[in-house]
């Protein structure tokens, strides 16, 4: 168990090193002649107007919110799924109830029109 996570840890470190190598190499051999025009923000040749921080639709937030709740729900379902084989049928129904309660939330958001992109 301990060794598995040690392996994952080393893998993660290497996974971060591998992409850095070509970046460093590129840094060494590639030319670097920056000038203000090259470095200006690319918007199809049109001068940038105002701040990058255009107002975003609040709708993005609502979808992220529904996602968060369902993400946590599925996390609860994984232990449940692993216990199915050993436990009686009743346990399946517990999980179904769990899912059903959350689907009620999805239905509410749907009826409230929060799943529309408008």
């Amino acid at each position, binding site marked *: *168990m301990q060794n598995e996570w040690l392996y994952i840890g080393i893998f993660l470190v290497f996974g971060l090193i591998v992409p850095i190598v070509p970046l460093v190499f590129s840094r060494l051999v590639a030319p670097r002649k920056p000038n203000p025009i090259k470095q200006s923000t690319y918007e199809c040749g049109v001068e940038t107007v105002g701040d990058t921080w255009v107002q975003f639709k609040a709708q993005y*937030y609502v979808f992220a*919110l529904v*996602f968060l709740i369902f993400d946590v729900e599925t996390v609860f379902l*994984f*232990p*449940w799924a692993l216990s199915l084989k050993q*436990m009686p049928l009743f346990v399946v129904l*517990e999980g179904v109830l769990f899912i059903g309660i*959350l689907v009620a939330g999805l239905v509410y958001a749907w009826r409230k029109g929060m799943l529309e992109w408008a």
Partner: protein
Amino acid sequence: MTVDQIIFILCAALILGSALMVVTTGKLIHAALWLVAALFGVAILYAILQAGFLAVVQVVVYIGAIAILFIFAVMLTRREMLDKGAQTRSNWWLPALLGLLILTGLVFLIIGQPAFGRTAAEMPLGVDTLRNLGMALVSQNAFVLPFEVASILLLAALVGAVFVASGNNE
């Protein structure tokens, strides 16, 4: 000093350093990203504690969902506080003092308990933590009630948040 302890100290340094950046850094988006680093450190801690499921769940829920939600919220409310001016209150030393006070108190409490100085026993062989967790969550003489109540809590949060966020309820 063993390898375990060195890994733990590095991990603790990552967590505490990132946590300090979370509460002091000026740009909110950086604070949110430092929070990701701190939470990742906590995930490593879970892995060291041999709670693999929680380590992965920590990444999935905190980094994959909660941190994203924070970043979205920062971006949605950015206009007003353009990260200019002081981000902390003028009397920030008062909370700092309180935090230090609580920390010293807790550390004294913990060091004073000899029971806390022991190291963990080896993980008993043949114990499938993951399956035990599943069984505990659904068996009736264990935690099935919290399991179902959690779903009701999540439902309430979803309904409440959607209601508040929808904004057309004046």
